[in-house]
């Protein structure tokens, strides 16, 4: 965190666009020295693009200062629930940027056999880990993996001639928002399944929905409460019995990696979030990668490309027979895939099993340390994360929002809040395995101290955070009078006219 120096400017008010001066430049571009070819006709051209004009040093200082106004995993504990903010090994960044990988052109896979070998072996490893042996690495993130999976189910149903009648996808109410959004993007309607008192799906409610109109169920394993979906195998069997598919959201694989395989549980297809379980840095919101792993029945529909080995040992990109098509112009987040491969090769099976073991132990340790101080709506053993409720504090007028803002003053990154939606004032904490016992204890101690503050002096928490480059920001103002670009509303009243659709 940066404390403002004496007389320091309002940093956020001065964008790069507002800095520097006309005529400054940060980089010298060579001039063409040869014979000049005339440019195209004037009506195809423009004058100039408005961009900042800074010296290189000014630009570097600006972005360095911006970086210092950010908190990352390398800064401290960042137990954002559902996100697996684990330590990102530096060697993975190094290998991903080896020139042979970095400069390989996507239109010539024949010349990128090294990359294809990695992708093939990664497909195999993810197939082995999930028990769903047919893998496409094409999806760019979890949500795109979901879309791929549900479209595959759609295509399979279409081929079976059942698409017309199977229009519904069942989604538990604890699910991540991408699940219902994906089902809708794939043309299905969403039926919500409530959560039972134990934090698992309400099996009776599920049973009541099961009929020939169901295309699939989407289930997160473990679920977003950090809990095991007890009886998932039977539920899957029930779904299969009515001819529907079971989609597994594998974003939480970190909890069970090496311990149980989606395929063995009756899941037909699952996506994984490589940026979570497999340690790619989250980059402030990507890039990620969301491979889909499918049963043999769904394999023909996998998105293109998948990597295959030819009889001569040459590797090639392949479009499965009934593929739903491509998801990106090229072959997916290859840089992320190389990192995931490096991670799996470093850990091996024993290392991966140590991941789930320690992720879960850390979460449970945190659970017992905090249980006396915060409400635990589902007081069970948890897996990789634990969802508390700030309802007790709410009664004192302190919201989950206030609690987490105060955590920032302790030098810690807050957990996820207000998700899952079914928990009141949810505080969803996922320490991951890369936090140490001391880190967990420090985190718990801060939350305990805040619980005490909430009793003693609830108003004070509303002032938090105090030690940050900016205090609490006015989010309502941001949405009500949107300023979404430089130069802002003074010069151009952009974003303020609201939605006017044709």
């Amino acid at each position: 965190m940066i404390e403002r120096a004496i007389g320091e400017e309002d940093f956020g008010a001065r964008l790069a666009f507002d800095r520097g001066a006309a005529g400054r430049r940060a980089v010298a571009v060579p001039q063409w020295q040869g014979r000049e070819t005339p440019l195209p006709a004037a009506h195809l051209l423009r004058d100039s693009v408005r961009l900042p004009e800074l010296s290189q040093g000014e630009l570097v200082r600006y972005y360095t200062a911006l970086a210092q106004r950010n908190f990352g995993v390398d800064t401290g504990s960042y137990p954002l629930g559902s996100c697996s903010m684990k330590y990102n090994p530096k060697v993975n960044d190094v290998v991903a940027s080896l020139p042979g990988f970095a400069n390989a052109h996507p239109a010539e896979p024949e010349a990128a056999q090294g990359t294809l070998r990695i992708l093939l072996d990664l497909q195999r490893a993810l197939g082995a880990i999930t028990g769903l042996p047919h893998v496409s690495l094409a999806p760019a993130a979890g949500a795109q993996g979901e879309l791929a999976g549900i479209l595959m189910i759609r295509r399979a149903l279409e081929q079976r001639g059942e698409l017309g009648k199977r229009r519904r996808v069942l989604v538990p109410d604890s699910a991540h928002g991408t699940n219902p959004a994906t089902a809708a993007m794939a043309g299905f309607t969403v039926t919500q399944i409530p959560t039972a008192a134990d934090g698992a799906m309400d099996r009776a409610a599920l049973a009541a929905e099961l009929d020939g109109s169901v295309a699939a169920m989407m289930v997160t394993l473990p679920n977003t409460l950090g809990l095991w979906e007890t009886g998932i195998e039977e539920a899957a069997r029930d779904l299969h019995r009515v001819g529907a598919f079971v989609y597994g959201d594998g974003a939480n694989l970190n909890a069970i990696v090496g311990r149980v395989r989606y395929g063995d549980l009756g899941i037909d297809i699952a996506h994984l979030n490589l940026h979570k379980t497999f340690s790619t840095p989250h980059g402030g919101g990507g890039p990620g990668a969301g491979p889909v792993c499918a049963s043999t029945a769904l394999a023909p529909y996998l998105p293109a490309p998948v990597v295959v080995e030819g009889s001569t040992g040459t590797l090639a990109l392949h479009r499965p027979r009934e593929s739903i098509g491509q998801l990106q112009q090229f072959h997916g987040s290859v840089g992320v895939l190389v990192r995931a491969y490096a991670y799996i090769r470093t850990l091996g099976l024993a290392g991966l099993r140590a991941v789930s073991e320690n992720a879960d132990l850390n979460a449970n340790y945190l659970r017992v340390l905090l249980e006396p101080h915060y409400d635990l709506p589902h007081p069970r053993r948890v897996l990789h994360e634990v969802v508390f409720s700030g309802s007790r504090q709410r009664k004192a007028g302190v919201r989950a929002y206030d609690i987490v803002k105060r955590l920032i003053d302790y030098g810690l990154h807050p957990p996820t809040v207000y998700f899952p939606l079914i928990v009141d004032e949810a505080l969803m904490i996922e320490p991951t395995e890369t936090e140490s016992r001391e880190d967990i204890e420090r985190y718990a101690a801060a939350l305990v101290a805040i619980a005490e503050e909430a009793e003693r002096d609830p108003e004070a928490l509303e002032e938090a955070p105090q030690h940050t480059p900016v205090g609490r920001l006015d989010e309502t103002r941001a949405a009500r009078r949107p300023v979404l670009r430089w130069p802002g509303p003074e010069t151009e009243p952009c974003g303020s006219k609201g939605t006017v659709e044709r």
Partner: protein
Amino acid sequence: MKGRAGAAPTPYIPNTDADRAAMLARVGLASTEELFKELPADQRDPPIDLPPSLGELDLLEHLRVLARRNAAAQERPSFLGAGAYRRFVPAVTGSLAARSEFMTAYTPYQPEISQGTLQSAFEFQSVVCELTGLAVANTGLYDGASATAEACLLAARVTRRSAVALLEPIHPGTADVVRTYAYGAGLRVDMIGSAAQMTGEHAAVVVQQPDFLGTIRDIEPIAETAHAAGALCVTVVDPLTLGLLRAPGDAGADIVTGEGRDLAGPVAFGGPSLGLFAAREVYLRQMPGRIVGRTQEQHGARGGDESEASPRTGYVLTLQTREQFIRRERATSNFSTGQSLLALAFTITLQALGPQGLREQAALCYQKAHNAAARAAALPGFAVVERGPWFQEFLLRGPLPAAAVRAALAERGIEAGLDMSDRSEPEARAALLMCVTETTTEQEVDALVAALTAIGDVT
């Protein structure tokens, strides 16, 4: 990973046996195995066939060996573009974007400690608006193609129509992705050869600029035709070309998408990528993806520091009611984790170049490409297909079938352009789509000319 007794199991996991023992005791469990007790017993701890673990030194060596298997490790001359362009990216870009506070953060849910990500995303939106000539932009989508698909879905939503038209020649990857997304949305995808083929069924026309064969389009008449048909004009751009070419927004485009990867870093076998997405302001609340807005502190002065009277400016995620985590099945998209780090790098590149540098870089690319084309066209047996003004890619026809020219160049250590034999455009058949960018050196062009001369001589 053969550990000592008592040791932490991997370099990434701090807890030792002693830590685990103490924690288990507190949790009330006898062993860590009990953590997994709720998992179905008969499925527990399955055999999983993975290769043995590698120490860091062996891992590095293993991946170096694999990287060397890629021809790209040899830095041979390349004339392959076709959607992935080897661009000049200034050293500051990599140096700044790699800062770990940027790299190891996630979606900025806590703005007070995420101003770095948020403010640079706002810079990104601003840069994209300036480049495209449109009023609003999001913080980026997966890639240019999926951004184009999202643009089609948006157009379908706002027009309530159920078909889109893709104007050929368009990159086949883009068309493929549009089809994938359209399948879910129940949209028909028509490939059209001219904007005149649009009908009242079409929600949008998608036009690539420059087109897939390299030719610079005049967007204005296409947009007019689309608008006349009640449809939107979606333009797919290569952002560097916008250093010279008219802003599509000024020419009538309603949505501009594009691929930002190549100005953010190396081509990297095509990914991760960066989808640019900008639109007219009326479509703001229909946009997919995350959007950052400027605001200010809730309270003015904060305790402690006397110097702070007026509220400070800050940035937050905004207009989130469009998004999946609030709207769920009624969201504008299921988009969640995107390509923030590439958006940051893209922004730094553009801001490092500035108005003058961007123009110079685009001009350098243009001049180098035209110079190389002129040299190739002058060779006996070779011709450059005339299709109108072009930017960096041209169709080269030789005395042999395209595949044979390609193979002959490969033998001489040169990565040729894309073989266009299977295109439907007559002028593309038997041609290679050759690409020259600002990073192509004169020596590389010399090597190409020498190789083409040799090929011409043999035939």
